[in-house]
């Protein structure tokens, strides 16, 4: 086996090295795909990801036990490939671990896990992600009942840090740059104790460092557990309406390793709900990041950045708080991308069984229309309860496709009657973007892994094997994590970009416009947030279709600077640094 990458390659271009070597071997991305049984194959077990989420179920129907968990795809060791962080549950309430209905994985402590990717290339040119559990060596000792995770380099030292959402106090892990992490929650002042599932790093004040938004869910206490019933009278999980919603939090980075809680000062305290998902993007094209919060069963918020450190909730008027019927939906996961290729950020939310997942199309001014019916995404979603989601171009045809992770929150009677031990599971879905605003479900062709019926929650998207197409990390509640490796995308051409800002940090929020000869331009955004309880690969992966021809690539940096690069090569990763391109005056 030929090992191409080393972990001692700080800020290196290992992934581009891999791409170049693959090309030199005459394999390139185009021939690296091995056709398995469909577009994706689950390679978690084969690659060493042996994580099984433990939800602490003990028959008490604690509503939060079926909410977790999440995972992150991020390059913690700066070796150019994606590593994995997975959050772990714990027991809830007074019962002992021995009373758990589903015992934890033997031999694995109940803590979050960090897996290092030792990516290599097989003799046939196939990239082989290989994950090694390095939790113990990393120094990460998670506490609390893990729900979700987000990543970002909050201290601008070039090493990405980890923020974990817990039931219980959240934790911030500072990356020491040597494979280890130190907990700095207290020093940083971000030990939010309310129940949070998702969060996002965002430089909302554009002062050059990452601030932190934490979306909180409800005030839950096992000692005050509510008893709720299914329509048939049997015991079931409560809806969030049984609990008080908890306010979200915004922390401003002071730039010295500490944060200030600016929730009230920024206006964020004025509205909140049962927050489960959060995504940050510039929705109205004013170059300032806005924040969108997906609430479970309550109106969602769209926090418009007022450019003075404050926000105003414009969810209702923007058309994104409720669906086209004027009804608040049970929003879980959320993602924002340019679905229709018109250069602005559209929104997509996943919802509860009986509701549709909902897509809001942006008119460019930050006003949205619910176009769920028109896109064909409504009917296929009504039978599912959906959580994590990812917009990604799985077939690299230049249109963003859609993955949805499903699994119920209330027992399915049909499964109960089959004596199913955990009657919440459903299959996951894949939709291909046909262009012209239409989608088609292609789940059946997507591979055996799509036949699995599980209780899926978090989804993170990234190119785990650095072969030029996007893979998926799927976290299952009370189940094994799945690593869906894409077997389809790199049959076509692609462009991979890592965007580093002037401080050498992944430029979260930077937007990229990729010109192609005689074809529409493609817009993408560097992002780690979105989905549900999870963090994505911040690199930008652009499917180019059947032509490798590229025009200029323009980057709209979060600082406001706009730069352009020409002559970039397709089918490889390239790092673009702020300040090194040709400035474009707007």
């Amino acid at each position, binding site marked *: 086996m030929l090992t191409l990458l080393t972990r001692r390659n700080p800020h290196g271009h290992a992934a581009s090295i891999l791409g170049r070597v693959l090309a030199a071997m005459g394999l390139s991305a185009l021939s690296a795909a091995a056709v398995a049984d469909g577009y994706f194959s689950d390679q978690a077990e084969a690659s060493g990801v042996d994580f099984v989420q433990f939800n602490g179920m003990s028959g008490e129907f604690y509503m939060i036990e079926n909410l977790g968990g999440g995972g992150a795809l991020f390059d913690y060791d700066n070796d150019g490939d994606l590593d994995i962080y997975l959050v772990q549950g714990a027991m809830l309430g007074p019962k002992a671990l021995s009373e758990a209905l589903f015992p934890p994985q033997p031999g694995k402590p109940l803590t979050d896990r960090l897996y290092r990717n030792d990516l290599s290339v097989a003799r046939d040119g196939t990239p082989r992600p290989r994950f090694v559990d390095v939790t113990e060596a990393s120094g990460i000792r998670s506490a609390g009942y893990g729900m979700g995770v987000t990543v970002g380099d909050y201290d601008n030292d070039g090493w990405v840090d980890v923020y974990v959402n817990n039931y219980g106090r959240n934790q911030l892990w500072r990356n020491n740059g040597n494979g280890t992490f130190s907990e700095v929650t207290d020093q940083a002042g971000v030990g939010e104790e309310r129940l949070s599932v998702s969060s996002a790093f965002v430089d909302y004040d554009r002062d050059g460092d990452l601030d932190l938004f934490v979306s909180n869910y409800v005030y839950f206490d096992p000692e005050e557990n*509510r008893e*709720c019933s*299914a*329509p*048939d*009278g*049997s015991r079931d999980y409560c809806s969030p*309406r*049984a609990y008080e919603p908890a*306010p979200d939090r915004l922390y401003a980075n002071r730039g010295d390793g500490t944060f200030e809680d600016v929730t*009230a*000062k920024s*206006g964020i*305290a*004025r509205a909140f709900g049962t927050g489960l998902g959060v995504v940050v993007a510039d929705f109205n094209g004013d170059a300032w990041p806005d924040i969108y919060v997906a609430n479970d069963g309550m109106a969602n918020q769209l926090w418009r950045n007022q450019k003075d450190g404050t926000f105003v909730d414009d969810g*209702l*008027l923007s*058309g994104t708080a*409720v669906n*086209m*019927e*004027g*009804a608040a939906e049970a929003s879980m996961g959320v993602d924002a991308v340019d679905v229709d290729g018109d250069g602005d950020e559209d929104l997509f939310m996943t919802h509860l069984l*009986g509701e549709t997942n909902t897509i809001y199309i942006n008119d460019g001014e930050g*006003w949205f*229309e619910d176009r769920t*019916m*028109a896109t064909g995404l*409504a*009917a296929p979603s*009504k*039978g599912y309860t959906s959580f994590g989601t990812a917009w990604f171009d799985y077939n690299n045809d230049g249109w963003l496709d859609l993955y949805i992770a499903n699994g119920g929150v209330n027992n399915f*009677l*049909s499964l109960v*009657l089959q004596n199913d031990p955990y009657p919440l599971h459903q299959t996951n879905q894949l939709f291909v973007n046909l262009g012209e605003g239409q989608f088609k479900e292609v789940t059946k062709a997507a591979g055996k892994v799509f036949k699995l019926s599980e209780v899926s929650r978090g989804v993170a998207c990234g190119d785990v094997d650095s072969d030029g197409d996007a893979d998926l990390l799927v976290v299952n509640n009370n189940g094994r994590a799945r690593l869906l490796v894409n077997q389809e995308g790199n049959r076509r051409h692609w462009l991979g970009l890592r965007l580093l800002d002037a401080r050498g940090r992944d430029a979260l929020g930077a937007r990229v416009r990729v010109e192609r000869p005689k074809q529409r331009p493609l817009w993408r955004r560097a992002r780690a947030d979105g989905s549900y309880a999870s963090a994505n690969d911040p690199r930008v992966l652009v499917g180019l279709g059947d032509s490798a021809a590229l025009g200029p690539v323009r980057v709209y940096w979060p600082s406001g600077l706009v730069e352009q690069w020409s002559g970039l090569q397709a089918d490889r990763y390239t790092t673009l640094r702020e300040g090194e391109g040709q400035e474009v005056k707007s």
Partner: protein
Amino acid sequence: MISLPGSDARRPAGSPRCSQVRGSGLARLRRAALPGPALLLGWAIIAWAQDADTLAAPLSWEGGGQTYKLVAVPAPLLEGREPAMQQALGSLRRELAALVRKPGVKPVELGEAFGHMGRHYHAHHLYGAAAGCYTNAETLEPGVFRWPYLLGYAYYQASHPHKAVAAYRRALAIQPGDAAAQLRLAAVYLELNQPAVAEPLLERPLEQDGLREAAAFLKGKAALARRDYENAVRYLEAALAEGPQATKAHYPLAMAYRGLGDVDSARRHLKLLGEGEPRVVDPLVDELGTFLTGARTHYFRAIEAVRDGHYDEAVYGFTEALAQDPDNVNARVSLARSLYLAGDREGGHEQLADALRRQPDHLLGNFLMGVLLDEQGQPGKAAEHYQVTLAQDPEHAGAHYYLATVLLGQGEFARAAEHYAAAWRLEPRLASARMLEAMALLEAGAPHTTVRARLDQAVSAYPDETMVVLPLARLLATSPDAQVRDGARALTLGEGLFEASPRLENAETLAMAYAALGRYEDAVAWQESAISATAAAGQFFQLPRLEDALSRYQDRERLPTSVALNASMLRPPPARALGPFREYPTLSAY
């Protein structure tokens, strides 16, 4: 004798031929050999099950000289449901199965029986079974409108829009001009994103009483989908004029106004957004409610009616449910709420009183009784109920708030302030509680520094909320305490208020701020403007107060704080039970 389907040898002469199209598990079980001692019991069980299960597979049924292909009616999963419902549906299914086998039954008779069974299933939201029954009813009675019509509705509710379209189309082939069917079909086409097909179907419903409101609503939505904002506004405004309870219509209306660039109107309608559905007078669908059995199903129907703003229906549902479940105090409180919201305040009062007789410490019952008595001008009695509520739940923000208001009215200012403070601490979004706490503290003689601190805190949390910004501005402008008075900040706040809303009280506040800064000429000018505008508006009752302030400014005097803060908007509004009865959050609706 057990008549096995498909066993011609056992079929009595003249009985309808009735054969299973394909075998079922139970059919196979029937043929299994049973050991001797269990034989009798076994056959008894099989016989019981067999009658019902006759329906679970497709049938070829002969009657009236014709052969009818009947579809399977899947046996719904009833396990865990209310015994009364299980019993009723099980018994009906067995009767229907027996009828299928009974000799000499006419197709129309069997068709009605399937339809009857279908409506029972439908009423209990068992759409798959209902659809099977309706399909068979339609097969047996091909010219009868109601079966394909109800089938379409069942398919629609079960999220099978294409099947719903086909069924409604068949219904309309029987009664081409039926406006209700046209309306229902249009709704499905809209869901299928085919507004161009939907819109012509709405013309007749628009002309028909009972359907006009829903038709206008759908017309408006169709226009909105086409981005024809003007027509969307026209139809949605018409829908709301016809049925103001259809608060759901405010959302598409707001979006239509937004499309026209009228953001103010859009915001106004967004504030009115609710869950009330447009009413559809549809006897065939409405009749389904009479097929419900078991209290729980009535509860669910009632709750849906509450959500849709159809309070008369909710009253019916809760009343029916309570007839079977009279000791359910929660449901009785829900009935009281529904009665009140349907306009029967006396009935609501009676049901609340009944609920509290059954459970004197019922939390929500006491709270609502308090609010109701408060509204009726009996604050003393109301306070007793608030106290009971708080004894049960010391963290009941609503009870703290209303009790504080009663205490304020009774002159117990310090206690009122305590309860207002408890209210906003428990429910931070209660901005009015913050303001009223400050006012109560002021009345209780608290130092202005304390009052200012409270208002500063409130403004920090709600910088755009007039009801906290205005009293702070006025306190800063008029306080005799030099440590508190801050004319410059009062002016800044006052200007912000006036800019946001050029109203009389904001103009007065600006005059107060100028007086605080010693700029009495400006104060006089603003006050004179306020007086002119008030006189022009014919609000002469305001003039003595305004003119008194004017003369003070002309004499280069500030207003006393007590006068400045004696504004109507700084006092609690009269208690109104409508809000708590309609919207008070509860863990469960019954």
